[in-house]
């Protein structure tokens, strides 16, 4: 007797030659096998012949109407976090360089290396509060990116695996 898997392989047309030979022998010799095979074969063909269900006649129209009334999805701020992060960093970087260049070029005094520390603007940028605030902002943005790109994906995949 062949296993159910082997019989289904025959019905699906993917059985090996050996199984097909065995199947032919069993069909001619075993009435029990023949009945069992014919039962499964009948179900197989019934399933192939199962009708495709039709939705209501208004399906397409209803869907198109829903589409027309669907609110236009605005990109949430969280989807632009990466850009926000890079923009803040770029602005800060360009601003620092341009201010530094401006004050260096307008200075008539002889350039001494320690003089950099005397620039008011640089000092303002270097104040503890500003540095802390910028660090905090960047840390929050980084955490938000991590949450969106890593944690969210991880829990979504986990949820899908569980379902």
């Amino acid at each position, binding site marked *: 007797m062949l296993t*159910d*898997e082997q019989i*289904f392989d025959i019905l699906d047309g993917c059985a090996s030659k050996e199984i097909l030979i065995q199947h032919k022998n069993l069909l001619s010799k075993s009435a029990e096998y023949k009945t069992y095979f014919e039962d499964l074969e009948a179900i197989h063909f019934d399933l192939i012949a199962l009708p*495709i*269900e039709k*939705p*209501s006649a208004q399906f*397409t129209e209803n869907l198109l109407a829903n*589409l027309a009334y669907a609110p236009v999805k605005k990109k949430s701020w969280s989807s632009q976090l990466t850009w926000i992060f890079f923009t803040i960093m770029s602005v800060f970087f360009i601003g620092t360089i341009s201010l530094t260049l401006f004050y260096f070029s307008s200075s008539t005094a002889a350039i001494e290396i320690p003089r950099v520390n005397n620039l008011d603007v640089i000092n303002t940028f270097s104040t503890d509060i500003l540095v802390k605030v910028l660090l905090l902002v960047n840390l929050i943005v980084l955490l938000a990116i991590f949450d969106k790109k890593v944690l969210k994906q991880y829990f979504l995949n986990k949820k899908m695996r569980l379902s």
Partner: protein
Amino acid sequence: MNDNQKDINLLNRIRTGDKSAYKELINRHKDYAFTVAYRILNNREDAEEVAQDAFMQVFGALQSFNAESKFTTWFYRIVFNAALMQKRKNKVESVDIENSSEAFLVSHSSDSTEDLRKNERKMAIQKALQNLSADDTTMITLFYLKELSLEEIAEITNISAETAKVKIHRARKRLAEEMKKMLNEEVRSLL
């Protein structure tokens, strides 16, 4: 142009704002989407809602679709997940008698003996499918509905192709057992 290329072409037209492409895409896939949902849910209204939601999700997430993959695999996965979610929501399962396929088949059956016999078998198969678990029904539906490959079914249901093959075999076996049980009950009721 094969079916998938046609779908990709329609998606590109939708992306460029061609409104007629929406209608074409819906008409191409609504029957299959509805059938998959209906076989899982056994309720026409719920199935229609799920199929509509699936289309809405597709149109909302067009940007995330990878044009190199097969549209139907992606789409059926959305339908399948939406139907399963709906099934979980419907804690109390109820069969919509008026709209059930049984009623449909009876009301549409012709008088010839051959047609009656065919319809009886169809009814029996559909009733047996309803008695199977959502997992078994889905496997059988996906396998027989559109001649999807094992790899495609595996991708839709998020399992391996080997597991999909085993699950399909088991589902068919359980369906055969269910049919046998129904037949025995019918014979017993006649005696």
